[in-house]
């Protein structure tokens, strides 16, 4: 269930489909709007992963930061090989961040796309 505000004050955005090009290496997925007078925050409300060409299942993680600055914001997701993997809002903890959302996978070759709600002014 959604928690927090009783009336949505967010706008819906999505990332581009991002191909994971290196294993266990965080990549930018969603660029948060950063130019306003007050920071915006974002939370993931939908995840789609295409994994039809992988050799094995993989572990996909979402976080913030790149390289050594990477910090997880959600538990790892198991991406099952050869099927479409999707998670909707009810299945995703309402983790809100004020930074770009990044992701990394244990296997390269996944294509990841997320939908987010962005809060702010």
């Amino acid at each position, binding site marked *: 269930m959604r928690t927090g505000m009783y*009336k*949505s*004050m*967010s*706008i819906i*955005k999505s990332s581009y489909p991002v191909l994971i090009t290196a294993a266990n290496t965080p990549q930018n997925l969603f*660029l*948060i*709007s*950063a*130019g*306003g007078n007050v920071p915006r925050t974002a939370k993931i409300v939908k995840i789609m992963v295409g994994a039809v060409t992988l050799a094995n299942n993989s572990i996909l993680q979402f976080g913030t930061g790149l390289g050594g600055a990477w910090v997880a914001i959600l538990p790892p997701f198991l991406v099952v090989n050869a099927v479409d993997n999707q998670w909707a809002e009810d299945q995703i903890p309402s983790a809100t961040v004020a930074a*770009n959302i990044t992701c990394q996978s244990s296997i390269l070759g996944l294509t990841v796309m997320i939908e987010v709600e962005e809060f*702010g*002014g």
Partner: protein
Amino acid sequence: MPDIMLYRAGQMQQVCLPGDLVGIWDQKVWTFGKITLVEGLPYGDPFIFNLGAIAAGGVVQPVQLPNLAMSDLEFGQFRMRVLDDVAVGLWMGTADRRWRTKNQVARVTLFSHLMDEDANRTEFFVNEDDYAYIGAWNETSYPLNVARVAFWGFRYRYEPARQSNGQLYTINNPPSTYTRIPAQAF
């Protein structure tokens, strides 16, 4: 009509009807008119303006909105909302920025519509060809291909309002009741 019709909450309504008297604040002078016609200006193209592509962090200086200009002896009542993730400011004349407090000026963003569904706080008036201008800020971290702003409202036609002796009303000798139209030069 009383002044409570200005900036009224809820769906946009006419601030006055044919036969009503209005006082139009324009160029720092009150001009009094009698409404002769009211017509709707529906939401839709060509009253949706596209400020075009804006780079990440980019700014669009105030752009004149000729499509909102009115004919002689007419004024328009407009509300607005943005359709893309861009912050938009309103100018009535390039030196007259709207929605001011002492130290800041409000802008309309995508979030404005979430709090103000009927956009009543954005309401403004354009008298004759006193052009409105909008400027925009792309505060996202990526370029925008389009930056659209939509307007809708009402068109009012009026004739100069005269006293029973044929003299025009002035602010020193105004009608007993009239609707104030804050058009320009605040």
